[in-house]
């Protein structure tokens, strides 16, 4: 088991390396540079700036330098936010993004599994249809539509919650963004759970459990739930990806000081180090989720454990 995990961990490193390399090349191919917006910079100053940031060196030298600083855990200075390093920028924004993202993930999983089991137990009855219709809507409607509509309803019509803005430690400001981020993965988890739960209920060992006279609650919790959650575990990485892409827009709509804005802004401003830092951050989170999923599979499905 440990060996399998280490092998997957080792496999993640070349993937990360390829992502860094391709992103580095792509953003450097892009026309324009980080100092374009300051109009009529005298050429001497521009040259000074470029040499200060090492941009006058050949591309491969810059690439080698960047990789070396990465290996030392240094993401480099931001080109646009002059007094900050990328590590500082990400360090300031990440707690906010992580707070809403992790809350959304936990809510989506728990509520989604509950709704899925609930619908499965009432298969083909009105409750089932209601949950599944809501789930289709939840999957179809993206956070950047839901959040403004929720803001319109709860922030402007009834004024229960702030439409946007942020105060340290204030939970009220985070409720609507979290709801908007939660809904799509919640709906997807509910559908997955319902389908796999219905599938598991057909299996012989469940019939055995029932015929032994075990009460429904025990059969569900002890026997049916664990195998039924295998497809949900597989959806974990896509769920995190959906929450991360959602947070790109949700943070900007809700005016939250997270890291979401840095990816698009950084790419538009040609803030090379900031963009690469964000890509690395997102990739590490996603690849890390992949590893977590592998471990979960092994825990949920004994066959995986004995195979290797």
């Amino acid at each position: 088991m440990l060996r399998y995990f280490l092998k997957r961990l080792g496999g993640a490193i070349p993937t990360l390396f390829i992502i860094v390399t391709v992103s580095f090349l792509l953003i450097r191919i892009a026309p324009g540079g980080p100092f374009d917006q300051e109009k009529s910079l005298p050429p001497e100053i521009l040259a000074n700036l470029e040499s200060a940031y090492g941009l006058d060196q050949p591309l491969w030298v810059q690439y080698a330098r960047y990789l070396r600083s990465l290996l030392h855990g240094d993401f480099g200075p931001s080109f646009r936010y002059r007094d900050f390093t990328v590590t500082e920028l990400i360090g300031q924004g990440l707690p906010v993004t992580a707070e809403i993202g992790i809350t959304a993930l936990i809510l989506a999983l728990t509520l989604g599994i509950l709704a899925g089991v609930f619908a499965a137990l009432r298969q083909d009855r009105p409750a089932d249809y209601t949950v599944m219709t809501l789930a289709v809507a939840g999957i179809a409607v993206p956070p950047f539509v839901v959040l403004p509509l929720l803001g319109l309803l709860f922030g402007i019509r009834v004024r229960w919650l702030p439409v946007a803005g942020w105060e340290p430690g204030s939970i009220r400001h985070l409720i609507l963004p979290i709801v908007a981020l939660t809904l799509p993965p919640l709906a997807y988890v509910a559908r997955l759970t319902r389908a796999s739960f219905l599938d598991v209920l057909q299996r012989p060992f469940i019939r055995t459990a029932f015929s032994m006279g075990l009460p429904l609650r025990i059969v569900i919790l002890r026997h049916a739930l664990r195998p039924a959650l295998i497809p949900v575990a597989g959806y974990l990485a896509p769920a995190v990806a959906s929450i991360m892409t959602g947070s790109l827009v949700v943070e900007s709509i809700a005016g939250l000081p997270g890291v979401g804005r840095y990816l698009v802004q950084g790419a538009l401003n040609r803030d090379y180090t900031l963009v690469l830092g964000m890509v690395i951050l997102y990739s590490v989170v996603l690849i890390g989720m992949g590893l977590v999923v592998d471990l979960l599979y092994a825990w949920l499905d004994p066959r995986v454990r004995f195979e290797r």
Partner: protein
Amino acid sequence: MTGSLWGTATRRLLANSGARVSLGIIVTLAMLAVIGPWLNPNRAETLDWSHIAADPGIAHAHWFGTDRLGRDLYVRTLTGARVSMIVGLVASAVSLSIGLMYGAIAGYVGGRTDDVMMRIVEILGGLPLIFFVIFLTVVFGRNEYLLFGSIGAVGWLTLARIVRGQTLSIRRQEYIEAAIASGAGTARIICKHVLPNVIGPVIVYATLTVPQIILLESFLSFLGLGIQEPRASLGTLIAEGAGEMEAAPWILLAPGVFLTTLLVCLNIFGDRLRDAFDAGMRR
């Protein structure tokens, strides 16, 4: 046989009220997007200085109101919807073509080629591709054709898997062997014999990528990376409306409701279509 499969599936599909209603709404919305703008005297890009940020209503010619620049929102929403739908269809077609070729080659050639090709799909599927789409749209400027291409290039992974599966299931059939025996080359067999026989079921699955792609386009346009001013898509209109939510909520409502309805109906219809086909194929 194909005829009866399609026939059964169609009958099963039309027997489902969810499928009928959603199809009806999709057709209505599509027709609105195509002919709707002409029903109103306003044009999408003209500014009406006497009605800036006007309320919706029938007292003036701006049925859904106007935005901050006095542009008519009824016409802008419908032309924007037209753009979103075209992007959805074209980019899905791009995905479908890439997925078909890739999956058919992997499935038909098989062996090590298949292993390598499917391994690539698996690796790409694990990457944060949305970030690469953002990259591509930033790097290659705001070109709408490249937008189609880069969105389509992301959507083909699932389709390639499905095509490969279908191809594997027909690879050993007699008509393929007959083609090999009569000396047809691999390329010819794939184009003439494999593709026509896998395309039906695959198109069914492709209907589910249309809403995903419309969603992705709106997302990019919302971020300011997709369709550019003065043209609009549903995503740019929603972004505009989200900024004016407090003063002029109707700017958000029209495109928001249109996109929501369209996506929900496309998803329901796609689901029902797939169910009808899956049930049909089991028979």
